């Protein structure tokens, strides 16, 4: 059949220039406004509004007098502002309730504890996942199980022993914080180390690096994200930790923030010092909020790394 036998086909007709619609139509049948979706959205927005309201209430109440707190919970504070002492509640909490000292103690204690925890856990996690020793798997599981042990189950023996060696103070607490954070941190870091490719270690070995060198110069930097996540999550957890602080800290001068808050609670309701109490709560909560806002993505990625697998 030669070319000339076939009919010349019609050319594509020129199209008029179309104006794009403001929003393309959704797929048919996708019920945008089904009752289920509306109900779900309503609940979600209620919750979100609730949470934002809580934050608003906390911030405003920390500037209010007790009367204002109870009678005008949602209004903006004005009483202390009128008298020219807007930060009165915070100053009270800082000085009278010992929050000022507690901040220092907590920052140092938590900071050191998280750093030491990661410093001790990262090599352990590396050893358990990449050094190919028999029994590493079961050993990792044994360590991970430690996450399930409630602190209540160890306080008595620890309390007794630490009292005997006179470490029932912030130093003993420091060691405890490190030891009790190890299961979670090791577990988290094993997840990160496991995800690193073997080829990197092999390449380093071929380049003549000693195993120690390989760890410090190659593997560790790659898990930087995991370490930051571990530091952050541990910091938040230890900042907020109260039970052990109650058991082991008895000298008010050396209280952590949550410990101070716990004591303040009893005293404050007795004296109706609600403004100061809420300011104290704000002092405990706000630094973590800032940390969270800065590192939210990291925290969430770290948590979901295990979940997503």
């Amino acid at each position, binding site marked *: 059949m030669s070319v000339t036998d076939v009919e010349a086909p019609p050319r594509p007709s020129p199209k008029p220039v179309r104006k794009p619609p403001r929003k393309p139509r959704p797929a048919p049948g996708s019920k945008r406004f089904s009752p289920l979706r509306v109900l779900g959205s309503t609940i979600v927005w209620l919750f979100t509004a609730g949470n934002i309201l809580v934050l608003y209430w906390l911030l405003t109440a920390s500037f209010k007098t007790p009367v204002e707190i109870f009678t005008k919970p949602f209004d903006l504070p004005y009483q202390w502002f009128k008298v020219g002492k807007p930060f009165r509640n915070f100053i009270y909490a800082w000085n009278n309730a010992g929050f000022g000292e507690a901040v220092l103690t907590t920052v140092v204690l938590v900071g050191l504890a998280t750093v030491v925890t990661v410093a001790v856990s990262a090599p352990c996690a590396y050893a358990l996942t990449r050094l190919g020793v028999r029994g590493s798997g079961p050993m990792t599981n044994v360590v991970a199980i430690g996450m399930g042990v409630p602190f209540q189950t160890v306080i008595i023996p620890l309390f007794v022993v630490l009292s005997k060696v006179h470490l029932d103070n912030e130093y003993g607490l420091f060691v405890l914080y490190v030891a009790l954070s190890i299961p979670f941190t090791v577990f988290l870091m094993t997840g990160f180390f496991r995800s690193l490719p073997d080829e990197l270690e092999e390449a380093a070995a071929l380049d003549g690096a000693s195993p120690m060198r390989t760890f410090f110069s190659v593997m560790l930097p790659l898990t930087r994200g995991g370490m930051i996540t571990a530091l952050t999550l541990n910091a938040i957890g230890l900042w907020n930790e*109260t039970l052990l602080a109650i058991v082991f800290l008895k000298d008010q001068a050396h209280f952590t923030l*949550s410990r101070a808050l*716990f004591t303040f609670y*009893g005293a404050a309701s007795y004296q109706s010092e609600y403004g100061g109490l809420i300011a104290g709560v704000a002092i405990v909560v706000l630094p973590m909020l800032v940390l969270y806002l800065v590192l939210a993505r990291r925290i969430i990625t770290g948590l979901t790394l295990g979940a997503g697998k």
Partner: protein
Amino acid sequence: MATVTTPATPPARAVKAGAHLSRKKRLFWPFAAPALVLYLAFLVLPTIATVVLSFTSWAGAGDTPEPNGVTNYTQMWASDSFQYAFRNTLIYVFLGGIGTFALAFLFTMVLRDMKGGKIVRAILFFPNIVAPVALGMFLGFVFKYQPGKQGLANYVLEGLGADAAKFLAPSNVTGVVTASLIWASSGFYITILMAAVDRIPPYLYEDAELGGASPWQKFRNITLPMTWDVVGVAGVLWTINALKIFELVFVLAGPGTYAPPNEAWTLGIYVFDRTFGSNGTPDFGAACACAVAMIALVSVLVVLLRRLMRRDAIQF
């Protein structure tokens, strides 16, 4: 015809791999020891000590432990406060868990298609970074019943024309705590579930759409089975954490310096109370017995949960 035999792995290669690996292995103990020693000394040994001590009677400092068989256990089981504590803990674990996960799934499905879903998720996560002590105080304040100085909840109720309620009355407190728990925890589980649901390929939902699946059918046939493993892990996390609840309830339901009424107790509060003896002398033996009960309970629940959730791993 000559037979061709597969040559064995050349020995030179095997030796080299062995040398490298054994050098690596030498690092094992130096690297792992510090963490493992701390873990052993401060978690494993004390736990064993607690188990041993639970069979003694010991009134704390100034007294010595006297073995007394299973007296601690029988007494504990018979005591009202333990019964309440046990019941409450189970309620928080089960009801709280179901409520939290149901809410988390609901939120996940809604937030997926919502603009700004990620921001909402971040806002909902907020209660997780707040110290449980502070949360407990805040909620204690919210649910306060004191005419003239009502808490937030009653303020709103009265504003709407309803009567103020005694939220923290012993008969109501468990319900209030459960609700508070669900509120405070859902953000965390929403985050985890969202990550798992995000991994489900969208074309599976498209295929279900072509088959005429309703939203419930899509959930049951796609979302739930494909996040099952993650739900299992999250469930274990929840169980462990729910069992440990202490500060939240202690501060929420009680005046703050000493324990709340018995009806609000959790196992954690029971241990704390027996350690510091709010009703007289401390009773370390009883505290240890309860602690052992906690370990036993968490182990049983976790094993049961894992058995229930077990399924062949699916890859996708």
